[in-house]
């Protein structure tokens, strides 16, 4: 299954490094990534493949969210289907 990792918050050095390091730590493979900075607001969206996840989904999601909090950014991990069903007919 694939999940969408969203990282939002105030822009600063090292956000991408932190988020991708967390993905690597749990075996989540980043297959696509897009990132924008609007004014000082940072928004990154990563599509990750979770086939090789070294832990269960919930632990991965909780840990990466916690790591985000420590860097003062909001990180959410959600199954890609919620976006597909909402925005595609």
């Amino acid at each position, binding site marked *: 299954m694939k999940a969408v990792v*969203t990282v939002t918050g105030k822009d600063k050095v090292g956000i991408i490094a932190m988020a991708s390091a967390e993905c690597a730590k749990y075996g989540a493979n980043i297959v696509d990534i897009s990132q924008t900075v609007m004014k000082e607001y940072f928004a990154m969206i990563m599509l990750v493949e979770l086939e090789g996840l070294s832990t269960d989904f919930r632990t991965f999601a909780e840990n990466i969210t916690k790591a985000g909090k420590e860097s003062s950014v909001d990180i*959410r*991990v959600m199954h890609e289907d919620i*976006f597909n069903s909402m*925005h595609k007919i």
Partner: protein
Amino acid sequence: MLNTHDVLETIKMIRDENLDIRTVTMGISLFDCISDDPERLETRIYDKITRSAKNLVSVCEELEATYGIPIVNKRISVTPISLVGSGLSPDGFVRLAGVLERAANTLGVNFIGGFSALVQKGATAGAANLIEAIPEALSTTEHICSSVNVASTKAGINMDAVKKMGEIIKQTAYLTRERDSIGCAKLVVFANIPEDNPFMAGALHGVGEPDTVINVGVSGPGVVAVAVREAGDCDFSTLADTVKKIAFKITRVGQLIAAEAAARLGVPYGIVDLSLAPTPAKGDSVAEILENMGLERCGTHGTTAALALLNDAVKKGGVMASSHVGGLSGAFIPVSEDRGMIDAVRRGTLSLEKLEAMTAVCSVGLDMIAIPGDTSAATISGIIADEISIGVANTKTTAVRVIPVVGKGVGDSAEFGGLLGYAPIMPLHGESCERFISRGGRIPAPIHSLKN
């Protein structure tokens, strides 16, 4: 790759605008539990419910984590208990309510609905005994919801039942007087009750339903309110389109969760209920949507038209988003559960009469309305008869959930807590309708030609 804007829109809806799945409700048939031995009936019911819904809460929690959307309530609806326990005495029904309560506690669900009777044309001995048991059942349990269908478009209105329900509501209020008569918040009187409604307090598992089923109720007044506000001063066609588009998106999430919950539980998926269900939280209000359409305050002139537009657009957007739609599907206007409605009542803009008019164009009816504790049973029956007539004449569901708050009067406020919220006590007319209510018998079913 997904569009960045789309992804951020979804996140904003969940994080800032209170988008959630209001309820995943498992319907469970209890017909196979029927026994002439009350103890065996109780054991079978407890076993069937706890077996069928064993994984309901844990699966919902898994789905919340996977999809990142809150599922606020996990609930159960059962076959109307008056049918399953038709041989029981009122005391037997009270005991059965206790059994349901025990099952709810074992499973960790928020409510079990279906302590219900269908008496639109007349009451069987079982139905009459269940109705007698309602006050004690609701005052001795926390998680049990009760509903009574007193009318239908085909059968007319059972005015004996309407009269009786006025008395039952009074007794329920009295028995729960220590907690602002909260028992009445778990009791609804219906016309044309749906058989697949996932929302409380009116949920039951109808006789034409499969053995078990998953029904989902979506929410999202906050999301619609923001979309309407951002649409600005557009014309009505554009306004309706805005609501339709957002209703589509909200319902798609409900459809996804319903299908996924059903698959993981190995239970058929029934319906998605398209209702906009408010909560007392800031920014989660149906009244706010109407005010964003251009009303200075909900309840003023234009409110019924605004609500009619909203209700219709929600259905149109939602129908395409889901393969099966059912339940109540529309906008809810429970007073105590909607901050904008509470404000409008406090300031005197929103009256009971206006609420009644609004119920002619949206789902449900006079919902979560606190009235003075010294209101007579006949007056409550009069309120029920009026509201039920709207449903019967217009071939739609209507319902009454009023709370005569013992010891309180106009100017006071009742506190129900949690999602049930708080409500100012609304004034009623002092003139009696007792002679009318006491006539007894049935109001005949309406004619459906010569429409005007």
